[in-house]
């Protein structure tokens, strides 16, 4: 097993003691481990601040790493990335504000749990699930790197569209609201995704002659507004009642939660596979989290309770998001195609360190590649320990009265929205989305399909049109080979299964709508 030999060399690289100069003091310590801790802590902070995001954080810190060894530098940057993945869950659960796009699905059950005083439990479940998802993906990378890279090559435009189609289809049955409301919300999302540049022709759409609309609506602005601001408006209407103050704040909560987790092994395994697959194809962590949540809701025996604080509703999206986040690095290293925006920035870093990503990297820069993979194992363990010890502290934030915390959240939202593109227009749009979110919630339209359509809408459109350009307009391209046909078939089964099951439950007189 050459992989294992390589991996142990990698561990040796990471754990090696070096003479280093830290803050002017000459020290002899495992520098890479030190860097790992710094990276994770920074990453968690970056993940907590909405809008800053892993990609921006890594981009800002990239120049700092040029004086380091490439292996140390990539460990620092990738640990920031892992940290941001962990951190994104914190604000989702505590304040219903997803710090990162992939933690949107975590809010669906995480926030209700926090409101019921189970914030510690939700955080523990989220962090542990992140760890398991990530660990699964790293093991897969270790064992299957060459195979997986070859598989990723089979994804052309038609195959990519099929994956997006499957994501939409498997999500449609998720909503507890009437199907037409789900569809309406999804269509609003698609409409919002069409603003700005048409990537296929380079022309502008729906900008109404305004320069402000050229980049389109950033997904993060919409999410911060719809969820964060919308939630604050709702809480204000309910008379500033504060719901989370019963949060328990001791470390026992971690152990108590851990006792519950093993019974969800099937959810874990399924979410890991969904995550790895979406990370490689490369659709990324955000659709992976949505898809995993949607499927978990469909197949779980507690499916009806999803959305009301079901721990499985936190486990599924977090596991898948992290499996995808890690798996996304594989196409970058093996093919030079980043599976996520953060991976794209890391790719820029590789080139500056004179490392050419691609099939030869695994052969010519073994020490670097396996050092990175080893740091994924260790970084995960270090990350889990760091965030778990913070659980009681984080849960205690909820004891602060709403009158104090609400303005702080509002400020963070505004800063986050501004940071995305350094544009004040985005802050205004965030407030508009906040009002939209409030109205949709009051009228019982689900937000999740809207968000999903907004994230994947333009990507799906692009893949659809690329495939059709290539086939000169023939729809047959979506059934032209075994791979794309089977993904499309799965999508149709998921789509019509929900229609059929809704019809059956209506015939039986069981209301399909619960809330």
């Amino acid at each position, binding site marked *: 097993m050459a992989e294992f030999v390589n991996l142990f060399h990698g561990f040796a690289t990471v754990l090696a003691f070096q003479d280093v100069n830290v803050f002017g003091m000459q020290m002899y310590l495992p520098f890479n481990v030190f860097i790992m801790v710094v990276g994770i802590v920074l990453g968690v902070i970056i993940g907590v601040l909405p809008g800053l995001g892993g990609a921006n954080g890594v981009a800002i810190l*990239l120049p700092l790493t040029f004086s380091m060894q490439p292996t140390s530098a990539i460990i620092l940057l990738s640990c920031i990335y892992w940290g941001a993945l962990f951190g994104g869950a914190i604000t989702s659960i505590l304040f219903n504000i997803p710090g990162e796009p992939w933690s949107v699905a975590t809010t669906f059950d995480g926030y209700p749990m926090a409101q019921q005083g189970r914030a510690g439990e939700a955080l523990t479940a989220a962090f542990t699930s992140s760890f398991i998802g990530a660990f699964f993906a790293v093991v897969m990378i270790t064992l299957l790197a060459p195979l997986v890279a070859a598989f990723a*090559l089979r994804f052309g435009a038609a195959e990519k569209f099929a994956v997006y189609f499957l994501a939409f289809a498997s999500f449609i049955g998720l909503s507890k609201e009437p199907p037409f409301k789900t569809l309406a919300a999804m269509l609003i999302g698609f409409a919002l995704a069409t603003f700005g540049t048409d990537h296929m022709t*380079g022309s*502008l759409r729906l900008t109404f002659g305004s320069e402000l609309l050229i980049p389109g609506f950033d997904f993060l602005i919409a999410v911060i507004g719809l969820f964060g601001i919308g939630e604050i408006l709702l809480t204000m209407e309910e008379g500033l009642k504060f719901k989370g103050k019963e949060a328990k704040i001791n470390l026992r909560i971690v152990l108590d939660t851990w006792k519950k987790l093993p019974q969800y092994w099937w959810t874990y395994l399924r979410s890991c596979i969904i995550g790895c697959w979406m990370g490689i194809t490369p659709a990324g962590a955000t659709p992976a989290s949505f898809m995993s949540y949607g499927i978990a809701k469909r197949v779980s025996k507690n499916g009806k309770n999803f959305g009301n604080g079901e721990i499985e509703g936190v486990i599924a999206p977090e596991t898948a998001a992290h499996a995808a986040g890690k798996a996304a690095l594989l196409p970058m290293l093996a093919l030079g195609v980043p599976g996520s*925006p953060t991976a794209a*920035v890391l790719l820029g870093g590789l*080139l500056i360190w004179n490392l*050419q990503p691609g099939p030869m990297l695994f052969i010519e820069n073994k020490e670097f590649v396996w050092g990175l993979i080893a740091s994924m194992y260790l970084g995960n363990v270090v990350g889990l320990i760091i965030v778990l010890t913070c659980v009681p502290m984080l849960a205690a934030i909820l004891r602060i009265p709403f009158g104090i915390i609400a303005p702080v959240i509002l400020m963070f939202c505004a800063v986050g929205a501004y940071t995305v593109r350094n544009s004040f227009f985005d802050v205004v749009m965030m407030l508009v989305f906040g009002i939209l979110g409030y109205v949709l919630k009051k009228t019982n339209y689900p937000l999740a399909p809207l968000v999903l359509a907004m994230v994947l809408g333009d990507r799906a459109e692009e893949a659809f049109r690329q495939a059709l350009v*290539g086939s*000169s307009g023939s729809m047959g391209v979506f059934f032209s080979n075994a791979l794309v046909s089977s993904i499309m078939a799965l999508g149709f089964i998921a789509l019509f299964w929900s229609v059929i099951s809704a019809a059956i439950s209506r015939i039986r007189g069981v209301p399909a709508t619960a809330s």
Partner: protein
Amino acid sequence: MIQSKRNSLLVAAAAVGVALSGTPAAAQWEPQRTVEIIVPAGTGGGADQMARAIQGIVAKHNLMKQSMIVVNKAGGAGSEGFLDVKGSAGNPHKLIITLSNLFTTPLGTNQNFSYKDFTPVAMLALDEFVLWVNSEKPYKNVKEFLEAAKKGGFKMAGTGSRQEDQIITAAIEKAAGVKFIYTPYRGGGEVAVQLVGNHADATVNNPIEAVAHWRGGKLRPLCVFDGKPLPYNEKIAGDLAWSSIPTCKSQGLDVEYLMLRGFFMSPGATPEQVKFYVDLFQKVRATPEWKDLMNNGAFNTTFMTGKEYVEWVSREHTRHLNLMKEAGFLSTN
């Protein structure tokens, strides 16, 4: 000119004094705050890589006292970035790195900016284009490829729409009397992988975008769209070096295209400010990291400033106008 730390502090103090008093001074101009490099394209592309490499080199070698940040503004085929810089007249802390969309975006989408709106600083390099095919395919040279392509239905994958890749495709079609199905993707890396995965029949990727797959034996270069072969003799794939790739013209395909990798400032920058950045880029060019970057990407290292650069840019604008007119890519509204 930065000498020792103490001297540069004095210079900074002097510069602040000058800025406050507002008098045109003999003292050299220097940035007073963080310098922003706008990239009118997405992360991971050629322009982005170069901007981030410069940012790294400036930080590592301490070439400037203020820090430098890279901001991607890719919306509207880059118009987001160009309009931002156009709207920052008199702000000497904003530069934009250009690619061919400086010409193609205003021509193709009728956006309200032109190369004349910006203050030219320097051309740092020209990016080459190479005709690539999958190495499993039987055609070994341009002639065989074009003969196969004449049967029709060949797919050309490229970056963006009505931009350099599609312009070159249209030029090949015209020169060789063939027809391709052009499919736009978002970035060069994605385009190269489409070719490796056999989802396209050819690409005109920049060297840096496809080199990894060439070395991995997955792609085969047929010709380079430059007037002369590339000057890099270092062996890259087996016995082949960049210099082994023949020019397209020598293979009977008379198409030449090079892409600008240069810098502009916001409108109304003073000659002192331009001089500061020209000097800065000269220092960047002297570093070993820059030479590595040029080597890896097989760049054409032509450096131009001042009048020469302006004339080059204006010639290139006319050329794009003609190329796009012939291909029918001009904006109709």
